[in-house]
C-alpha cells in the first residue's frame, strides 16, 4: 500500500517535473518567464515607481509615508491628514523627501512641459531628477509614468479577462466533451422542471425585485450587496424547493423517463454562432450599447467573447480522456458522473489548457490595447494603446509612437513565447 502511494506521488511529480524540464530547455521561454516577472513587479508596485507623492517625507517635524497612505485610502482603511488634503504635493515645503523614481502621475499635467516635449528636447525642469525621460504628450503628461501605470492595466486585463474566459470555457467545454450528446441522462421532469424553476427563481429573485436592487446599489455598495444577497437566497430557495418537488413527481412513470441532454450539440452551436461574428465587430457592438466603458466592462467583454477557443480545446481533450481505462474503472467503482468529471477527467485534461491560456492572455492584452488605440477603451485610466493613439495626432512626437508600442509588443511576445514553450514542453511525443 505504502509502495503504491509513493509510486503515485512519483508519477504525479513525474509529469510536472518532465514538463518543467522540457520548458527549461527552451531558452526563449525561460527568458520570457523572467520578463513576465519584471512586468508583474512593475504592475504591482506602479504607485511606488511613478507617483507625485513622496515615498517618505518629513513635513513640519513629522515623518509621513504618503504613497503607503494613498494605498490605504484606496482600500478605504484610512484618510489623508487634513493638511494634505487638496494640496499640490510637489509644492510643499518638505524638510526631507524621497520621491519615487518617476516623480509624476500619468493623468496629471506638467504645465511647464506641455505640447509634447521629447526626451532629447529641452525640457523646463528644475534638474535631471525631474526630467521626463520618455517625453510628455500634448497636455504635458509624463509618458514614462503612463507606461508604468499602463503595465498594471495591461496585466490586469490579460489575467482577469482570461480568468473569466477560462472558467466559462472549461465548464462548457468539459460538459460538451465529457457528456457528448447521449451521456447526460436525466428524468423528463427534472429537465423541464429545472428549466421552469430557474425561470421562476430568476423572476422572483431578480425580475420582481429589479428596482429594489438597483436603488440599493445606487445608495451604496453595502446596501446593494444586502439586496443582492436576499435575491440570491430567494433564487436558491425556489430552485431547491423545485427540485424537492421533482423528486416526488419522478415516481410517475411518464415524468420519470430518462432522456438525454444534448450538451455537445447545444454548446457547439453556441460556439459556432459566436465564431461567426468577427470578434472585434462583436466587441464593438457590445461597447456601443454600454454607456461608459470602464476597465471592468472591457475585461468582462473580452472574457465573455474569448472563451470559445478554450472550450474547444478542453472538449477535444475530454473526448480522448473519457474513453481511457481509468474513467471506465471509476465508472465501474460506482462514482457518479459529476464526481468523475470534476475529480478525474477535468484535472487530467487541464494542463494543455494552460497553453491556450498563455496565448489567450497575449490576445486579451492585444485586444484591450487595440480598443484603447481606437479610442474605445477604458476612459478612466491611461493605457498603452491610448498613449500610442496620441501619436496619430502629433506627427513630431516619435516617442509617443515608439515607447508604448514597444511595451505592447514585448508583453504580447513574452506571453506568446511562454505559450510556445508550453506547447513544446507538453508535447506527448517528446516523452518517448
Amino acid at each position, binding site marked *: 500500500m505504502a509502495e503504491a502511494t509513493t509510486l503515485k506521488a512519483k508519477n504525479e511529480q513525474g509529469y510536472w517535473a518532465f514538463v518543467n524540464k522540457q520548458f527549461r530547455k527552451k531558452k*526563449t521561454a525561460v527568458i520570457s518567464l523572467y520578463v513576465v516577472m519584471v512586468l508583474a513587479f512593475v504592475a504591482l508596485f506602479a504607485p511606488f515607481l511613478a507617483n507625485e507623492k513622496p515615498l517618505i517625507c518629513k513635513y513640519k517635524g513629522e515623518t509621513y509615508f504618503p504613497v503607503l497612505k494613498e494605498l490605504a485610502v484606496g482600500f478605504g482603511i484610512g484618510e489623508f491628514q487634513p493638511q494634505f488634503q487638496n494640496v499640490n504635493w510637489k509644492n510643499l515645503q518638505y524638510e526631507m523627501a524621497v520621491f519615487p523614481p518617476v516623480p509624476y502621475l500619468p493623468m496629471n499635467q506638467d504645465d511647464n512641459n506641455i505640447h509634447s516635449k521629447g526626451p532629447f528636447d529641452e525640457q523646463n525642469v528644475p534638474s535631471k531628477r525631474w526630467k521626463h525621460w520618455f517625453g510628455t504628450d500634448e497636455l504635458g503628461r509624463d509618458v514614462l509614468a503612463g507606461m508604468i501605470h499602463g503595465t498594471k492595466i495591461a496585466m490586469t486585463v490579460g489575467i482577469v479577462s482570461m480568468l473569466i474566459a477560462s472558467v466559462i470555457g472549461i465548464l462548457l467545454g468539459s460538459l460538451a466533451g465529457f457528456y457528448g450528446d447521449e451521456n447526460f441522462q436525466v428524468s423528463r421532469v427534472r429537465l423541464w422542471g429545472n428549466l421552469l424553476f430557474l*425561470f*421562476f427563481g430568476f*423572476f*422572483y429573485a431578480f*425580475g*420582481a425585485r*429589479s*428596482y429594489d436592487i438597483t436603488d440599493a446599489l445606487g445608495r451604496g455598495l453595502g446596501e446593494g450587496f444586502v439586496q443582492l444577497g436576499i435575491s440570491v437566497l430567494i433564487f436558491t430557495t425556489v430552485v431547491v424547493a423545485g427540485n424537492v418537488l421533482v423528486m416526488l413527481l419522478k415516481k410517475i412513470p411518464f415524468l420519470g423517463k430518462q432522456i438525454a441532454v444534448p450538451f455537445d450539440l447545444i454548446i457547439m*452551436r453556441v460556439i*459556432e*454562432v459566436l*465564431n*461567426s*461574428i*468577427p*470578434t*472585434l*465587430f*462583436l466587441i*464593438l*457592438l*457590445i*461597447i*456601443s*450599447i454600454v*454607456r461608459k466603458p470602464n476597465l471592468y466592462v472591457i475585461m468582462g467583454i473580452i472574457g465573455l467573447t474569448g472563451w470559445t477557443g478554450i472550450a474547444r480545446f478542453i472538449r477535444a481533450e475530454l473526448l480522448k480522456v473519457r474513453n481511457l481505462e481509468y474513467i471506465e474503472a471509476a465508472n465501474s467503482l460506482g462514482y457518479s458522473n459529476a464526481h468523475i468529471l470534476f475529480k478525474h477527467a477535468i484535472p487530467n485534461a487541464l494542463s494543455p489548457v494552460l497553453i491556450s491560456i498563455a496565448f489567450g492572455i*497575449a490576445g486579451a492584452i*492585444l485586444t484591450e*490595447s*487595440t480598443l484603447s*488605440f*481606437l*479610442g*474605445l477603451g477604458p476612459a478612466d485610466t491611461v493605457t498603452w*494603446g491610448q498613449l*500610442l493613439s496620441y*501619436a*496619430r495626432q502629433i*506627427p*513630431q512626437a*516619435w516617442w509617443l*509612437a*515608439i515607447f508604448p*508600442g514597444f511595451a*505592447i*509588443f514585448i508583453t*504580447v*511576445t513574452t506571453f*506568446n*513565447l511562454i505559450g*510556445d514553450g508550453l506547447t513544446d514542453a507538453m508535447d506527448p511525443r517528446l516523452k518517448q
Partner: protein
Amino acid sequence: MKPVEAEVKTGKTESGKKFFFAKISFPLFGYILKRILIFIPTLFIISLLTFILISAAPGDPAETMLNRTSGEGQASDRLATERSYVALRHKLGLDLPIFYFAPTNLAVSDTLIRIPIKNHREMLDRLTYQYGNWAQIENYYHQLKSLEFAIVSSKKDSTNANALIELRNTAAKFFIHHEDVVLSALLVDLKNQSNVAANLTEVKAHAEAVATAYGKMKTEATTWEKYIPLVQWSGMHNQYHRWLFGEAKWFGTETDPTLGRGFIRGDYGVSFTTKRPVKSVIWDGLWITMLISLLVIIIEYIISIPLGISLAVRKGSTYDSGVTVALFLTYSLPVFWIGTMAIFFLCSPDYIEIFPSFGLGDAVWSDGFFYKLGDLAYHLTLPLIIASYASFAYLSRQMRGSMLTVLGQDYIRTARAKGLPDNKVIWKHAFRNSLLPIITIFASFFPALIGGSIILEFLFTIPGLGQITYAAVLQKDYPMILTNTMFAAILTLVGYLVSDILYAVVDPRISYSKK
C-alpha cells in the same frame, strides 16, 4: 452510396467527360447545399443576438434624431414637436414591442411602450412596480398631461405670470418622480401655487384631479400583480419581425412606399446620423473590404507556402532557426503599432515620404483606366503590406510545421528509399498533403481579416466596412452597426464555406456524400 453510383453509371454511358464531372461534383454540390441550409439557422440566431443586444442600448433614437429641446415654448410648438416625435417613433417602429414574446408580469401593461417620452415611460414603469394597478396609473398620467396642458394654455397676465412659471416647473417634476415622499410634497406645492392667482380656476381643478387620481392609485394598489409571471405574446407586429422581414407585401407591387422591406429583402433601414438609407453607404464599403481581404489572402498564401516549405526542408539550419525567430517576432508585432509607425515614418514630410497616408486615391471618373488602377495600387501598397505581414508570419510557421509532420511520415521515407529525387518527394508526395492544415486555417483567417479591417481602415482612413462600423459605433448609429455586424457575419460564413470546398478539392480522401 447509392445515388452516387447511379450517377456514375449514367455518366459512363454518355461520355467520359461527364462521367468525371458526375463523380466529383454530385456529392460536393449536395454538400454545399447542405452547408448553406445550415447557415440559415445560424444567421437567424446571429440576427437575433445582435438585434436584442442593440435594443438593450440606452437612449432614445427618436429623441437623438430630432435633437429635441426640452418642453419650453408655446403650447402649440410643444404639441407640434411632440406630434412629430410620436410620428418618428412610429416610422422607426419604436412603439412596437421588441420581440414576438416577452417574459413579464401581470402588472405591466402592453400600452406602456407606446408612451412617447422616455422619461415618462421610466416614471410609469416605476409606478407600476410600486402600485401595480395599471388602470389607475394610466388615469393619473392622463390627469398629469391635462394639467400640464392647462398650465401652458392658460392666459398669462401680470397677476399670474410668476405662479404659472412655478406651476410649470412643479408639473414638470411630476413626470420624472415616482417616490411617494417627493410626490406628496409636490402635490402640496401644486395646491399652494394654484391658489396664488384668482384666475387659475381651471388649473386648480386639474391639480385637484391629479391629487385625487394619485390618492386613488395609492389606495387601490394591486402590488401582488407583479408577482404573477406572464409571457406576453405580441404576434408578428414587433420590431424584430419588422426589421428582418419588413412590412411591405411579399408579392405584387406595394402601394405604400413608406413600408420597409426588411433585412432579408435588402432593406437595411435608415441611418440615424445621416438619415440616408444604410444600403447606399454599405455596399461600397463592403466591396472595398472584400477586395482588400482577397488581395491580402492571395499575397499571404503566395509568400508563406514556399517560405514554409523551404524552412521545413532545411530544418535545423541557421537559415531555419533565424527565419523562424524573425517570423515569431513579426507575428507578435501589433498591427496598429506597425501601422502607426509606418504612417509616421514613411508617409510624413517630417521623415520619409514615399507613401500616401490615407484614402484610396484621388482619381475621378474621367481619368483613364490605367491611371485609376495605378493610383489605387499606389494607395493600397502600404495597407496591404501592413495587413499581410502578421498573418503571413503565422501561416509560414504553420506551413513549416505541417510540412515537417508530412515529411516524417512512412510513405515519404518509402519514396526516398526507392530513390526518388528530393524535389519530386516534396512536390509530388508531400506538398498536397501538407496543404490541408493551411486550408483549415483559412476558416479562422477570413473572420480575422474582416475583424482586422476595422484597425486597418481606421489607420489608413479607407472607407470600408470596418471604418463605417467604427464611425457608427462612435455615433451610436444602431441601424448601421446592426447591418455591418450582419454583413461581417455573412462574409465569415462564406469564408467557412469556401474553406470547406477547398478542403474537398485538395483532399480526394474526403467524401461529402453520405455513406
